């Protein structure tokens, strides 16, 4: 046993040494690329740990020295200087939450992305089922319309959508953040393709059992579609959690409705020299949920994000 594993290890490492030039060049290129890709992540994390002085002078390594520094704002409030000494990392992250209602922003982000996904499924699933499994007059026309609508990027028609919502008095509401995304033609298309592969026998059997078409969708089709639905969920949540353009247009000034990207943007707007640390902390907090989820379930995420490749 040991002999075998030893010799196989030797065999696999030997060619690696022999062809090391080509292999090494490849790794050098890939590592160089990785460094450039990681640079802003490094800057973001590192600065969220450091004191203003360390940021300005570019000292302290990755974590900073974590020496307590004087919080001038606190001194200005008339408190004792000794009480105003703060550790950089704690200062940065607490300021991120105190200076702006960051928790509220995160909650808004969660509410908006969840509502969008929920409504998208509610609308798309029955339509996809009808297009895939029911025969009715006008089906081809509806499907043709779906294919046409796939051509329209919603961001591109933001202006007329904004006018419509403004006319209805809906700007600066949750509704404005959600409504334009309630229809996902891509979701319909995807689910339809998926339902096409579900055998008709399954549906006929359900009908024999006396199930209504409605309960067939939610009790028979939905469970079979879970993998596709999961991928679509990732696709949808990533797009809308990170979306900046649309919230920027329909939410003007009302902080209670800000999504995380808007909150960060506002933070940047009134940041001065001392606030870079807290700003980077805010950025880290906003980016972290998706990055952590991605690192945990990489395969699923890559599947979900590249779903659009199935078109």
């Amino acid at each position, binding site marked *: 046993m040991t002999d075998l594993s030893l010799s196989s290890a030797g065999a696999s490492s030997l060619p690696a040494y022999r062809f090391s030039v080509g292999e090494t060049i490849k790794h050098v*290129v890939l590592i160089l690329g990785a460094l450039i890709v990681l640079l802003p992540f490094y*800057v973001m994390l590192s600065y969220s740990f450091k004191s203003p002085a360390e940021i300005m002078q570019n000292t302290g390594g990755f974590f900073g020295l974590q020496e307590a520094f004087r919080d001038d704002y606190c001194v200005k409030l008339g408190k004792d200087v000794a009480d105003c000494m703060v550790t950089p990392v704690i200062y940065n992250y607490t300021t991120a939450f105190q200076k702006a209602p960051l928790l509220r922003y995160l909650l808004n982000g969660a509410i908006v992305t969840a509502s969008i996904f929920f409504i998208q499924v509610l609308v798309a699933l029955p*339509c996809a089922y009808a297009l895939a499994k029911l025969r009715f007059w006008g089906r081809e026309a509806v499907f043709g319309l779906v294919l046409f609508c796939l051509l329209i*990027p919603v961001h591109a028609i933001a202006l007329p959508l904004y006018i419509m919502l403004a006319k209805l008095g809906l700007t600066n509401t949750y509704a404005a953040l959600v409504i334009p995304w309630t229809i996902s033609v891509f979701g319909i298309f995807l689910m339809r393709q998926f339902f096409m592969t579900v055998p008709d026998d399954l549906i006929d059997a359900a009908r024999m059992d006396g199930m209504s078409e409605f309960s067939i969708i939610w009790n028979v089709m939905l469970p079979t579609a879970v993998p596709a639905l999961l991928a679509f969920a990732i696709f949808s949540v990533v797009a809308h959690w990170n979306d900046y353009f649309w919230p920027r247009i329909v939410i003007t000034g009302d902080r209670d409705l800000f999504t995380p990207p808007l909150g960060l943007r506002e933070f940047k707007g009134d940041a001065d020299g001392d606030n870079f640390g807290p*700003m980077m902390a805010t950025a880290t907090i906003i980016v972290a949920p998706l990055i952590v989820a991605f690192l945990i379930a990489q395969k699923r995420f890559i599947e979900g994000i590249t779903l659009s490749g199935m078109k």
Partner: protein
Amino acid sequence: MTRGSAHWWFVGPALFLMIVILLMPIGIAGVLSFTNYSLGNAGADWVGLDNYEKIFTRSTYEKMFGATFRYVFVVVPLSVGLGLGAALLINSTKRFGDLYKTIYFLPVMAALIAMAIVWEFALHPTVGIVNSTLERGCGSVLETWSWYAHGCERGFPLWLTDRDYAIWTVAFIGIWQGFGFNMVLYLAGLTSVPRELYHAAEMDGARTAWDRFRLVTWPMLGPTTVFVVTISVIRSFQVFDTVEAFYPQGGGPSKSVYVMMFAIYEKAIQQNLMGIGAAITVVFLAFVMFLTLIQRWLIERRVHYT
């Protein structure tokens, strides 16, 4: 077997939303583009083709098209090329492939607005990490490169605020953000290339790696490439987050980064000039739809031939 009108209950909501949310706005944009409408006014005047005439004659919009096309023509080839290059390299290395894949995909997941703010900071002329790293290289062999020597003497570029560098810097961030997505699509495409084809090509005398790539890999990746290029074009046409984060007013030094989405935002939302905004929207939609139709045509033609 149809049972009553169940299907219309299923299709109805989607159909209604498609018409109201996706089709009606196109019509509205089309009509408004011939008027001088602004929000809050009771009516609007019919101005005919005035808005379009402005778009195609005024220098502001000339800059808009210039910036947009410069951005698209840099970001698309480079992010597709780097995506393909990364995929081929990762596919051919024996170890750590998954690690590189994970790292390169990170920017796709991160909110672009957040990363734009970080990049702005990294590219800051005095405290930014990029220029301070470049300065450390001064006095070394790198100075034989005249650009580098010039930077050491007179200071490295201001990147985002220099008229000559701004659009390229923004494009660089676009490439940084997007190539990992293309890489993943190419990696998926590579797994579907049959091994036997490489053996067959070798039999036919394809000895070098370049021959194998030219004769087998590249043609087999054709459909992937068509898709990757189209989606990259559409995405880069829509660039907004970085531009708005760096230049909330005016679209950069001498309007050199005044891309179309930002122009729509500035004209229509900030200045309430809906007519002009609608006209830009129509032109924009025409571009994007035209490109997608070309893509579909290319893919269908391929399907018919093979």
